[in-house]
């Protein structure tokens, strides 16, 4: 009797194996499995790519990037893209310049304030309102206005937490102040932000307020001097996302007055009033953010001014195990998955799975040297001395150390065997397509003899004699990062067995705390990827500035020693390049800066980022924009069975 069970089960398994593969599941819902996680829902607080996936879809900005273009824009909350031709960009007095944005009418946020029979205002989902309730929407409560734009920009600048918010400060002051604290200190005439008194705080608030003017349905931003990247910054999905002032105040956030802004300056994550709530006006709204399950669900906003998106829902879920992600993609339970580059070719051969490769990226991956690092209780530097059991906090201040490390990396092996020949070596801050890039600029190659030569000279010979031990940090789950550090680790040990490099993988948020979360970084070495936020290499968010300016994004996180080097050697040339008008001259200057990054071994430049996505073949509509680091704008995405 029982003899038929085994064979029957086997046949059933085989018969069902095909059925598991191809059917379209969850129509209308896009399931995106990744290894990342988001940190906050407050667009002013966020500054990294995973968060962009949310803010770009939940909030509107004044302008958007035009498809894949990185220097062209389309209207969003602003009805027009300012230009000299349409008169919305106007030169002013004393070299200032103003940008005027006419604000679109009838744009609602996901939740709007409706007055009840008792006169109380309740925030309700716009999509669920009856016609009668729509008529009872309180003016200003959920319909975006020019005042909301002003409030949102001021709130982000005054919050001053993310470098994206600080970039807006830098833009508005035409590079004079890198953040609101510097501006306040200057106006108050003091040396630390803690010394700025109430009058000083009010003064900077008023100065900022004067630069963002509201006139009816128009917002005009007045810059002290021309700033070429202005429109690019206004289109980035971070601090320039527009909030509803009344709703934000109702959450207990800043009331918009000069006397209270300091209470909301640099809030702790959990204390930020918008940390876990969202009320943007973008095509999707946050339906659920389950932090314990690392899952965020966004639901379509039918009241979106351009009409509802094709997808009903988008789910972003963190699944750390690659095999599990792959099986879910194959089974159709996932539509998009983060894929390690080494599996790309293999995955591309599977039926029903689409690999889109060769997407341009504007940034590279590098190992950053950080000095000085915190000397107190810092396990990353061991003993804190060059005794073979640690390193001094300013270990990387010696150029021979940096050059030794750079010659100890096997770039070609990484490119060939880890990145499967899909990209090229990074030559400096600027990548192919950016001004200043030259294919023949000098690069480091693996040369153990030259590495040994430099290590023997470093720190008066102590490095070679005593050896060292230090910890390099990386974000968890990135196999290419791990390969790069492992290769360096092995090569260093081959050059001198007393050279010990330890590798520590951390979750993104913890990594951020160690590397760029404080005034005293604790990581002496970290592998990351940073890129510009517009195509010009200059300005606060340009590639050259990011890496090579004392006030740049990289400079801000890799220690005062690095910043001093930038001040001494790079800042003057960067300033010259930014103020030079002739493009040919500018190109030469940025090329020179690229060469100098090699000469001073500022960083270990590894490879140019390689762009690709892995999806089910029923997913269509992805628009890649390299300035947004490939973050998905889900509005044009559709999902339908292939015939």
């Amino acid at each position, binding site marked *: 009797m029982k003899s038929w069970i085994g064979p029957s089960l086997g046949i059933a398994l085989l018969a*069902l194996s095909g059925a598991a593969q191809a059917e379209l599941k969850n129509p209308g819902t896009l399931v995106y499995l990744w290894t990342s996680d988001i940190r906050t829902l407050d667009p002013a607080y966020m500054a990294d790519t995973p968060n962009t996936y949310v803010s770009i879809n939940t909030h509107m900005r004044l302008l958007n990037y035009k498809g894949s273009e990185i220097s062209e824009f389309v209207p969003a909350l602003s009805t027009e893209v300012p230009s000299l031709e349409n008169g919305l960009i106007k030169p002013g007095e004393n070299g200032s310049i103003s940008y005027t944005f006419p604000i679109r009418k009838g744009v609602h946020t996901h939740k709007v304030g409706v007055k009840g029979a008792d006169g109380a205002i309740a925030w309700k989902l716009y999509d669920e309102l009856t016609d009668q309730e729509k008529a009872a929407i309180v003016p200003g409560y959920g319909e975006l206005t020019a005042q909301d734009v002003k409030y949102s920009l001021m709130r982000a600048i005054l919050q001053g937490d993310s470098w994206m918010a600080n970039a807006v400060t830098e833009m508005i002051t035409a590079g004079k102040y890198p953040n609101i604290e510097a501006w306040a200190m200057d106006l108050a005439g003091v040396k630390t932000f803690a010394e700025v008194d109430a009058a000083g705080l009010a003064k900077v608030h008023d100065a900022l307020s004067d630069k963002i003017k509201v006139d009816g349905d128009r917002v005009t931003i007045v810059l002290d001097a021309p700033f070429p990247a202005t429109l690019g910054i206004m289109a980035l999905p971070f601090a320039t996302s527009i909030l509803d002032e009344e709703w934000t105040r109702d959450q207990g956030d800043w009331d918009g007055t000069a006397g209270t802004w300091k209470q909301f300056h640099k809030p702790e994550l959990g*204390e930020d009033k918008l940390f876990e709530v969202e009320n943007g006006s973008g095509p999707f709204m946050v339906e659920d953010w389950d932090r314990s399950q690392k899952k965020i669900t966004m639901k379509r906003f039918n009241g979106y001014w351009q009409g509802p998106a094709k997808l009903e829902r988008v789910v972003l879920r963190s699944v750390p195990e690659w095999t*599990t992600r792959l*099986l879910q993609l194959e089974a159709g339970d996932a539509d998009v998955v983060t894929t390690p580059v080494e599996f790309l070719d293999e995955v591309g051969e599977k039926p029903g799975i689409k690999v889109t490769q060769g997407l341009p990226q504007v940034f590279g991956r590098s190992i950053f040297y950080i000095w000085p690092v915190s000397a107190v209780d810092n396990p990353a530097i061991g003993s804190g001395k060059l005794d073979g059991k640690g390193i001094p906090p300013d270990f990387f201040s010696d150029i021979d150390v940096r050059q030794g490390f750079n010659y100890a990396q096997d770039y070609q092996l990484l490119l060939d065997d880890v990145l499967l020949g899909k990209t090229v070596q990074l030559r400096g801050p600027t990548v192919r397509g950016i001004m200043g890039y030259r294919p023949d600029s000098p690069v480091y190659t693996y040369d153990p003899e030259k590495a040994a030569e430099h290590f023997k000279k470093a720190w008066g010979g102590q490095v070679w004699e005593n050896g060292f031990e230090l910890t390099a940090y990386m974000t968890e789950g990135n196999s290419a990062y791990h390969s790069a550090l492992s290769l360096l680790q092995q090569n260093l040990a081959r050059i001198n067995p007393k050279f010990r490099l330890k590798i520590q993988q*951390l979750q993104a948020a*913890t990594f951020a705390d160690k590397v760029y*979360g404080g005034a005293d970084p604790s990581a002496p070495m970290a592998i990351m990827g940073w890129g510009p936020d517009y195509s010009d290499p200059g300005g606060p968010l340009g590639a050259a500035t990011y890496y090579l300016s004392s006030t740049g994004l990289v400079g801000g996180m890799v220690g005062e020693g690095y910043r001093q080097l930038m001040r001494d050697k790079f800042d003057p040339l960067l300033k010259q390049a930014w103020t030079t008008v002739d493009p040919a001259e500018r190109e030469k200057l940025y090329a020179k800066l690229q060469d100098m990054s090699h000469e001073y071994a500022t960083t270990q430049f590894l490879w140019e980022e390689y762009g690709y996505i892995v999806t089910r073949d029923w997913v269509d509509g992805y628009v890649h924009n390299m300035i947004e680091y490939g973050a998905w704008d889900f509005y044009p995405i559709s999902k339908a069975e292939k015939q």
Partner: protein
Amino acid sequence: MLAYAIRRLSFVPIVFFALTLMIFAMQMMLTPTQRVITYVGSPDALKGGAAQVAALIEKYGLNDPFYEQYGRWIGNILQGNLGWSETARMPVAEALVSLFPATLELVIFAFVPVVLGAIWLGSRAGVHLNRPVDHGIRLFTVLGWSFPTFVFGLLMLMVFYGSVGWFPPGRLSQWAMVEVGGGGFRRWTGLNTVDALLNGNLPIFLDSLRHLILPVVTLCYVSLASMTRIMRTSMLEALRQDYVRTARAKGMSERVVQNRHARRNALLPVVTIAGMEVAAMLGGVVITETIFDYHGLGQFAANAAANLDFPAVLGFALYFSLVLVVLNLVVDLLYPLFDPRVRLA
């Protein structure tokens, strides 16, 4: 029996107090700079650098004597304040509470089959010593012992999800997540199966069962092996006892001898091991949770440790010690049911 139970219960606060002392003492091995993170709301509070850290050390009295710091710490814990977990992006207590139901559900479904299966298989093997049944069960347990969880789990996933699509990873299907997240589904316990039944929603109940099968089977197989071997050895030992021989001499049926006389006495070591097994499972099953995309306490604890998320690690240590204390108590209270001599002692 009541006196025995009271005696055992009276030990609980003492043991727990000792455990908190040990955990706090371990924490005190870190320097004030390293410990300050467990006191602040989030790492963002440390952004100001060394000066701010020094001010916070002063504010929280991290250079004060041990007993003063312990008093403040235990006071915070009693108020449910275990600090902020950067791993979970929420307070530690909230993270533990929100993840516990997922782990508990897994444990409930895995534990019952493990215990019943181990008792049955161990008894069968003991009774049929050196016969094909015994050899078969021994082979089964050796395989269970030797199979690494991640290999077994991945194999299960590839066959029963990748190939036939029966049992998907995660806790719920997408459609069910939408329904559970919607306003019509009330969350009572956080256990999907139980909540589905309480809401009278059979499709969600079946869907959550479907998602539980592979992690439960994986967990069962690995745990079953060790417990079965203990039961078998214990059963063999019991079958050699004089009282079993006496029972047989009295003419009792072999079934009664095995079930009432031998098996009941053989259960004592299994009860002890089962208690420890449940405690280990409630501490989280990292590999099983990772493979099956099942976000529970195991993954949380592992991530917290890897991220040097001190508040989360300490909070988890406290939670786990509480689990151990409670389960030890339960095991102690169960002993007299199987062995009256414990009750009299």
